């Protein structure tokens, strides 16, 4: 737990030392890291590879954005709606998709996410499809604080990140988290120890979907934009990439993965339109040479105490 606090202290410190551009970048990184942590719960801990997590991110984002825009919800209830929407979607998807395993699970989640993406396009009248819509500044203040300012945004992102980060760290230490790891390691054995693997997997998916939904709602809240591009296949593949890069099944891996990939793409997009080439090369190199990711490899080679 001390290490986790240390990470948060570093993030707090960064605000005071980083130039403005990078403060903005880190606000975004922390929000995306929440998404990565949600994904990591399912992929890194439970061993289920989903190719459709963008649907949960989008559910959170639209659950927040649409209720604000259409029904004039204030921030708190809209945010909550986003989380509930993501969790409910995860419940339905889980109930269906968890009947499959392995490759079939990947494809089923991919197909469900594609369905969600198409549904968002279909209801373009409300969602404005690919173009998306903006959540007005006036609707993005919470408890009297205007969350559109750079400073407010950074701290809002940090607080939400901290809550998710510590909660996930706690969760994986609990018996529940250990059981998820047991399923990842050997599902049949876990079942024959008397664990209800199907139920545990469903719970993992719901929590994972809800955390991804928190990330989506936070994104809509802090950056004021809601668009269908966040529910494309690409946004399902990003968290996989971040988690693989940082280290699946580690608590700080997702954050590290997001930081690296964010800056890799940020820097390379200054040179070429084909910046996604970096993502492709990274994916291939990681699977070939570092399947444990940065944190995982460091933990195995040198620092077994890494969380």
């Amino acid at each position, binding site marked *: 737990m001390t290490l986790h606090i240390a990470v948060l202290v570093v993030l707090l410190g960064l605000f005071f030392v980083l130039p403005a551009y990078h403060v903005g970048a880190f606000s975004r990184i922390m929000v995306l890291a929440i998404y990565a942590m949600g994904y990591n719960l399912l992929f890194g801990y439970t061993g289920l590879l989903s190719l459709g997590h963008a649907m949960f991110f989008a559910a959170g984002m639209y659950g927040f954005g649409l209720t604000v825009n259409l029904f004039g919800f204030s921030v708190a209830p809209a945010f909550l709606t986003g989380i509930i929407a993501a969790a409910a979607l995860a419940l339905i998807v889980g109930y269906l998709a968890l009947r499959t395993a392995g490759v079939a699970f990947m494809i*089923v989640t991919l197909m469900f996410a594609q369905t969600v993406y198409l549904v968002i396009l279909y209801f373009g009248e409300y969602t404005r499809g690919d173009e998306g819509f903006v959540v007005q500044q006036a609707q993005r203040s919470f408890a009297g604080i205007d969350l559109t300012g750079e400073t407010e945004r950074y701290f809002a992102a940090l607080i939400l990140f901290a809550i998710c980060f510590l909660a996930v760290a706690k969760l994986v230490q609990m018996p529940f988290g250990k059981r998820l790891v047991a399923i990842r390691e050997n599902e049949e054995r876990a079942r024959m120890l008397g664990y209800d693997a199907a139920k545990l997997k469903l719970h993992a998916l719901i929590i994972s979907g809800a955390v991804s939904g928190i990330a989506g709602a936070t994104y809509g809240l802090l950056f004021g934009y809601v668009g269908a591009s966040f529910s494309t296949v690409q946004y399902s593949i990003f968290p996989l990439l971040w988690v693989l890069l940082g280290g699946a099944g580690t608590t700080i891996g997702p954050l590290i993965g997001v930081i690296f990939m964010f800056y890799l793409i940020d820097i390379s997009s200054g040179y070429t*339109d084909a910046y*996604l080439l970096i993502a492709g*090369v990274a994916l*291939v190199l990681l699977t070939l040479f570092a399947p444990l990711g940065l944190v995982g490899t460091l933990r195995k080679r040198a620092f077994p105490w890494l969380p």
Partner: protein
Amino acid sequence: MLASLEGAVISAILVLTAMGLSIVFGVMRVVNVAHGEFFMLGAVLAWVVTTTLGGHPVFGFVAALIVVPVLVGCIAAGADRLILKRVNYDPDRTIVATIGMLYIIQQATLMTYGPEARPVEAPFNTRLSLPWFEFGDEGFQMIWPWGLSITSYKLFVIFAAIAVLIALWIVLTRTKIGLIMRATQQDSDTAQAFGVPVGKVYSWVFGLGAGLAALGAVLVVPIQQAHYLMGGDPLLLAFIVVIIGGLGSLPGTVIAALLIGMSDGIISVFFSPTLAKIIATFLVAMVLVFRPQGLLGRAPS
């Protein structure tokens, strides 16, 4: 009926692409997410070959038809050696690696070929009219001419696809190559023990799968322009076909491709294209959930 001839053209392209995906999955148990990019690569290279050679469209097109699938097949086989072989075809890692390959191929194309869509001229393109028979109010009628109208090129695509399928079927069922592939598919360890060079077979199969997609793409570029993002739809459709036909079942793939190709136009008539896609995507997911052996496959006993 015109819709169904157009549907047959779509089916023809689709069946080649899906067959590639299906063979790779069947023999290697690899879900090749980069499959659509091999299709795109085929289309783009067809443009490159025809424009480099110049001259009469027939000449360039025939050259592309021969060279491009082989070239794409070689690239894919190289990727298999270089990447997939090294992750031991572990399902999770292969899928991640092929996602990486997808981005690499797509983005490398964007960097070299650019973001424009470019056409390839059809080798021949005369408008044909076929007689059509119909039972109308006045009994049996023959409508002639202009009962049906299609370009000669589209007709060629349909027959080319049929010819390739027959050739493929003969190779798979009647030759030693097919035998080796089936042995590897059944049990790669045993095949290895009996002296089948499984590693090489995998590379060939992966190359063959990509080559089939590229062939479909060469056939399609005179109808649809080559673009670096064109791989997405064929990938999704090929997935749908392979899932409905039953993962790895070749006859199932053919039937499903016909079904999807033909119905694509028909569904779009009744619903908006987006709604049609929603229904199709969702139904395919449900098929995988409740009938993982495919609609046409048989449940393992």
